[in-house]
């Protein structure tokens, strides 16, 4: 098997606070291969963004990587400092944020923002960069790109701005793109277009994608595999189809039952009782145990086995004999 583009090994992020050390990411392990889209789902506060920020080296202090390793194209990057890490951002790792209305500098023409990004990373001339800026806008489907390079962000609609953001994230041809809820802030009508665009561009270029979202519809639509996070830990990891139709982890099961997904044809939505624990009150053993219908003594004593490869982090995973 080819070497993965991104490989996260047992990654933990810690935030020291006055009330003790919080662990928004706790021992997470996964790989993303070239051309693969890995969906990351989980409730708000599960640590999805923290993990993404750790990879691109943009954790805001005092949050920091406290354990584990991050490998990009066979090179370890979690211990890179300052300028060495900066060189990777934009060049090897592109990022797309949630809100396209605030992601672009309002005072600079979008063409200038593209050109500055390319000139920072690529050994090309200014005129070459300007040419590529137009091409980049064409590629993300901005009509009249040759003219629109001279426009300012406020002259575009939300959906168009997210296309510009994607063009910016991809303009130096990174091997990994982290998209943190790229459609959450958009009109429902343009969400599917943006996801389709992201998917097409990354497939064409063989870019690995970390697609963070809490929209299972987006995952079903675009992702190859999905990682489910709960309270900073990985609950389950597997091919999208398996996880959606035959979840093994009780949390994933509850999550699927509470998601209106056409493909599953459920009419009544199920709610998981309780709420995800706060970071300063994660229970011993399996973090899900206070809410879990299958909980047993063992779950309160020892942490569930961690996910490595395709599995659920659970002592008593759901069996799906009928599926196999």
């Amino acid at each position: 098997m080819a070497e993965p583009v991104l490989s996260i090994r047992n990654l933990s992020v810690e935030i020291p606070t006055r009330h003790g050390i919080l662990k928004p990411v706790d021992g997470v392990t996964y790989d993303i291969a070239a051309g693969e889209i890995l969906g990351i789902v989980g409730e708000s506060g599960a640590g999805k963004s923290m993990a993404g920020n750790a990879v691109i080296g943009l954790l805001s202090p005092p949050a920091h990587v406290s354990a584990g390793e991050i490998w990009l194209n066979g090179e370890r990057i979690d211990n890179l400092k300052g300028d060495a890490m900066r060189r990777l951002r934009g060049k090897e790792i592109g990022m797309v944020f949630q809100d396209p209305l605030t992601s672009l500098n309002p005072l600079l023409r979008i063409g200038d923002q593209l050109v500055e990004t390319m000139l920072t990373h690529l050994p090309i001339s200014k005129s070459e960069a300007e040419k590529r800026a137009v091409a980049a806008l064409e590629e993300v489907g901005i009509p009249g790109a040759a003219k629109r390079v001279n426009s300012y962000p406020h002259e575009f609609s939300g959906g168009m701005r997210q296309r510009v953001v994607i063009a910016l994230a991809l303009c130096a041809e990174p091997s990994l793109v982290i998209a943190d809820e790229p459609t959450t802030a958009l009109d429902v009508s343009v969400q599917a277009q943006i996801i389709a665009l992201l998917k097409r561009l990354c497939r064409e270029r063989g870019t690995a994608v970390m697609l963070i979202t809490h929209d299972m519809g987006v995952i079903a639509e675009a992702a190859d595999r999905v990682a489910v996070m709960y309270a900073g830990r990985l609950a389950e990891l597997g091919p999208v189809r398996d996880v959606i139709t035959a979840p093994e982890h009780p949390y994933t099961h509850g999550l699927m039952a509470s998601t209106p997904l056409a493909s599953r044809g459920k009419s009544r939505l199920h709610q998981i009782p309780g709420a995800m624990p706060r970071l300063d009150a994660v229970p011993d053993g399996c973090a899900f145990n206070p809410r879990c219908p299958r909980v047993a003594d063992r779950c309160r004593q020892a942490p569930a086995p961690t996910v490595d490869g395709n599995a659920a982090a659970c002592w008593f995973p759901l069996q799906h004999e009928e599926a196999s």
Partner: protein
Amino acid sequence: MLAYIIRRVAQSALVLLIVGLVAFAMFRFVGDPIDNMLGQERTADDIERLREQLGLDQPFVVQYYRFLENAVQGNFGVSYRQGRPVIDILMERAPATLELAAVSGILAVLFGIALGVFTAIRRKGIAANIIMSVSLIGVSLPTFLIGILLIYLFSVELGWLPSFGRGEVVDLGAWTTGFLTASGLKALILPSITLGLYQMTLIMRLVRSEMLEVLRQDYIRFARARGLRNRAVHFRHALKNTMVPVITVIGLQVGAIIAFAIITETVFQWPGVGLLFINAIQFVDIPVMAAYLMLISVMFVGINLIVDILYFFIDPRLRVDRKGGH
């Protein structure tokens, strides 16, 4: 673009009309101009004649119009005290104030912005914290006290710099300048620091807080996520956005420098319009006071107009835009 500028000019004109009204009211109602102009020995005839001559028997609106008409032509009447046209006196004094204000303004803006950016970028550094603490003193000490302290230190104790006056000036015809002689330049140092310090600290603190706010914005995170160098993130992306709210305040503060020059000019016996105004108050020299008021407000309004137009160039969102997207 043109409509925007025309609107701003119209607003400025309105402000000037109102200030003109105040100046005129001073003329008309503070003390009796006839009293002021005729000495003790006067006849009822003299008074009547002068009243007609000055147009004081005309309706208020006509008088106000006359006043404006004269003011626009630079005619503010004759100083009660010096018996010379006010405009001549003002023109003699203006260069001193304008040179002082220009140097102070440039110092305040340059150092204010530079230190503001520095303290924002190095928020946690020792140097930034020291600067912030010292700046508190700059904001809280009154101007005259700063002036006196500087005089004490650099003139009295060290004897490096003169404590009063403009030094040697060169007469260029309509303008006298202190920029061309060593003693003129030396004389500028203490007064311009005194005058600009408050504005500098104010601008610095404002730039710092705005910059910190901007550095928290998503587009700065995105700029970092694109791997831009710190220099580009700070100066190309952050500073420009910081300047949008800051620039109005800078305009107001530069205007304030000209107004506050009164205190500094008094402390340093600087022969500018501020000192002239103080002396005019002592002698209730109304024409000089009114002219000073008009002059200062013209400068204020002018600076604000320039700021508004600058705005327009910095922030594309203000420009009339061809609507795009869909």
